[in-house]
């Protein structure tokens, strides 16, 4: 390369968003690098499994929890939803009076194999019914919906030892590992927008919509162009100032470094056949990136829209189809991972910004509600159902009352699976929900 900067130089500078308060940019660079190395599975802390991966699956638009995990044992359910309820005989029973929506059959298979757990009645106090506000609350893990993303804070904390409100330092920069840092960014989101959840103050996710769009289209026109392009987009920043131009130079570098790697990974054929649909396409790409050995810790995919205000259907129909795509994709994903022998490394968490109201509306749909179940999948999860199905008798103005704060689920994942300190990342003490199986828990307590 003709750049005046060495490969090592540009990699280093690309990994960090130097903030305006940074007085020692070189030091900050190396601390971000250390994070990258750790997130990349290069940590040398003894006893900490360093190859754990989290996949976040967002169900956008507000998934109807009551028609997902169906309380067929409650007569109130049928009274409130005369047109759209799931008959008891069609529900796939998982417990006393509750069962999966029939279109979740593939997920039921995972459940029966001990590879899926349901966390019941998840929400937060004073629920907000605006899509974007509530989504921001889930993304920031903050009921005022302000601040960085919770996964971004996890990245930042791993990097620099600071959480939500303070800056800090890292003790052991791993500058020597820089070459390996190119083997995958800490977070990858599939889609055109990088989710707020993954936006840290220093670490930003790499996002892409499809492999085809994740490169410069003119690069094939001739080689001289390609060389010039690389020089322009693989540059080191010359000042630590937090300007828009530095931000762009860094993002350009991130894009270049990850483009070839990601496109190469996702151009392979998967080991199993995936069903049709966009969520299947996304999970297939995640499986391919895992198989290619990217050292990425967190992947982010989205499915929906679940905003079923009208004509949502029951055992069949619009909502049913979305659930079918969701469950089918997840089952194929874990078959693929199993064939790769990577299944035990990958925990998947699904969530939605809210559930829907108990009663159906006049358009045979449901309006924005509150608490809903979350799914956690993978061989490491605790078998069965966590928590109780929220009561259909004890409602809050027609809405379910939440039982488990979503941040307690995050805490369980951060502490138990990502081996991070949930208190630092979430800046609050939620008693972590035990979402992992006993053997996993043992590992966690040994720490």
């Amino acid at each position, binding site marked *: 390369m*003709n750049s005046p900067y060495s490969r090592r130089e540009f990699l280093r500078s690309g990994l960090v968003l130097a903030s305006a308060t940074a007085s020692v940019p070189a030091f900050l660079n190396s601390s971000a690098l250390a994070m990258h190395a750790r997130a990349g599975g290069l940590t040398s802390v003894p006893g900490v499994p360093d190859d754990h991966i989290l996949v976040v699956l967002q169900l956008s638009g507000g998934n109807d929890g009551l028609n997902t995990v169906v309380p067929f044992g409650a007569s109130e359910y049928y009274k409130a939803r005369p047109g759209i309820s799931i008959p008891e005989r069609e529900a796939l029973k998982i417990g006393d009076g509750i069962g999966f929506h029939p279109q979740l059959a593939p997920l039921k298979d995972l459940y029966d194999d001990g590879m899926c757990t349901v966390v019941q009645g998840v929400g937060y106090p004073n629920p907000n019914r605006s899509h*974007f506000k509530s989504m921001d609350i889930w993304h920031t893990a903050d009921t005022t919906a302000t601040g960085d993303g919770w996964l971004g804070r996890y990245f930042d904390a791993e990097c620099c030892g600071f959480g939500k409100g303070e800056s800090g330092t890292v003790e052991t920069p791993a500058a020597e590992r820089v070459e390996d840092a190119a083997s995958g960014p800490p977070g990858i989101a599939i889609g055109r927008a990088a989710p707020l959840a993954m936006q840290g103050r220093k670490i930003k996710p790499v996002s892409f919509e499809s492999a085809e769009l*994740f490169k410069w289209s003119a690069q094939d026109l001739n080689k001289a*162009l390609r060389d010039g392009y690389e020089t*322009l987009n693989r540059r080191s920043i010359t000042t630590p100032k937090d300007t*828009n131009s530095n931000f762009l130079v860094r993002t350009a570098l991130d*894009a270049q470094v990850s483009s070839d790697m990601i496109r190469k990974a996702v151009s392979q054929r998967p080991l199993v056949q995936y069903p049709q649909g966009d969520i299947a396409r996304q999970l297939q790409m995640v499986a391919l990136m895992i198989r290619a050995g990217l050292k990425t810790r967190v992947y982010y995919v989205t499915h929906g829209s679940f905003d079923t205000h009208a004509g949502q259907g029951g055992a069949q129909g619009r909502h049913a189809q979305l659930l079918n795509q969701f469950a089918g994709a997840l089952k194929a994903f874990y078959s693929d991972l199993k064939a790769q022998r990577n299944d035990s490394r990958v925990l998947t968490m699904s969530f939605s910004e809210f559930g829907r109201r108990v009663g159906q509306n006049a358009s045979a749909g449901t309006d924005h509600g509150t608490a809903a179940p979350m799914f956690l999948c993978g061989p490491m999860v605790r078998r069965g159902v966590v928590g109780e199905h929220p009561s259909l008798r004890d409602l809050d103005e027609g809405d379910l009352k939440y039982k488990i704060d979503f941040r307690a689920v995050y805490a369980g994942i951060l502490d138990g699976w990502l081996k991070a300190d949930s208190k630092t990342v979430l800046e609050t003490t939620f008693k972590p929900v035990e979402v992992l199986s006993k053997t996993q828990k043992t590992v966690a307590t040994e720490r």
Partner: protein
Amino acid sequence: MPLTQPANPPDTQPNAGTEDLGDARLATSLRPVSKDAFGEAHARHLLWRAGFGGTAEQVALLVRWGPEKSVDHILNFDKVPGEPVAVDTFDRTIMRPPDRNEREMYRAAQRAQDENKLAELRKMRQDREQADRQQMAKLQKWWLTRMIETPRPLEEKLTLFWHGHFATNYRTIENSYHMFMQNQMFRANAAGNFGDILHAIIKDPAMIAYLDNNDSRKGRPNENLAREIMELFSLGVGNYTEKDIKEGARALTGYTFEDDDFVFQPRNHDNGEKRILGRSGNIKGEDFVDIILNQPACARYISRKLYHYFVADVPTDERGGDKTLDPAQRAVLRQMADTLRVNRYALKPVLKRLFLSEHFYEPRFRNQQIKGPVVLVVGAIRSLNTPPRDLSILNDALDLMGQRIFFPPSVKGWDGGRSWINTSTLFVRQNVLAFLLTGKKPQGFDPTADTQKFDALAVLGEVRDPDAAVERVLRVTLGQSPSATAQALREYLRAAGDRVTQETVTGMLLLATAAPEYQLC
């Protein structure tokens, strides 16, 4: 600098009366830029920020004109002959509500349980919805074309500003003609008076439908419109209470529309006593708007939004966000708010002062704004004279880059600034430029690659010397020549035997527009 300012010049001392000092504060805020200082960088800055950029020739023309004449030409665009918009540009009948006959037919079919007839009526409805979505796509292309071709760029840039400020999404209201009417209302008032726009918005069918005011009636008011008016359209969080929203919602009950026209329904309106922001009485929707316009916070909020759009990223929420502003910026924001108030919300005086101010042209603001996707695309076509090629593809690209016009992501509009940029959108941004310049698509070429040739050499004017060509390409695309970028272009040209041809100039333009700095203006 030989002399330093005293640490605390008298006019920047904290002082309860500073808001009213008026012109005494000019020295530190909106002092006019001098004619002699107004060079190419200034002209370019003005063209990009108050419009969608310009060609090298347009930059040179503005330099010759100087700041006064340039700003006058740009701001008083009503004097520039433009293409008037006919009300029948689009079909207003597609989504008209069913008339009495049709309703009767439907009821009869329901009574008779005539499934065939009902299915036929449903099909008719679906066909109309589909036709309306097609008209929506036409409307998007129409506006995009207008932005590309207009001789009055500020008119369209302000129309885009109001579209983001009073964000309304077609997907929710499903009526393309109402979106067109709203767009026309923004255009008609683009540089007019903010008070007029706020008054018009409570009677705008698209907005009424978007924020559910058509469901708001006495006894069960819907708070959506009143809330967003105060929170996002005029005052900003912290300048009103929840009670004000509830009372404002009562004032707006009965404000709805029929077909394409605003109607006030007296029997759905709450005529009772209300108290909003300290004023009491039988407050109507119009009074509610006037009470808001009388709040100093309103002028402050609109000034911030204008500053954010035209000058630099500033937090639009004034609570706690001011830490990042320096004293000069705070003084400018105060001056802008004062100018708005003194002129009773007329927009031209405040924009004129801003565009003529030294502050506006400060080097720290130049080439530091991240272009929104629309500005990126329209600006590239206008400043380089590329063919627009395929408006459908450009619309798809705008969507991928996060700015689908008429479909803002929420009532907050677009956040702008750094939120435009991530690794995914950055490639789309580079690729849409490659598409405009060459017709190259991620896979293969567009048919227009052969039929619509881009004249790259025209960008150079008379220049044919290799060094000068590099310099010229960089000046047109980036408005600066960062050494690393200049070096990359120079090396590319050298590898091509220093031949300055359509092909090599296109190559240099491909490179320059793929440089990170091209995302800035």
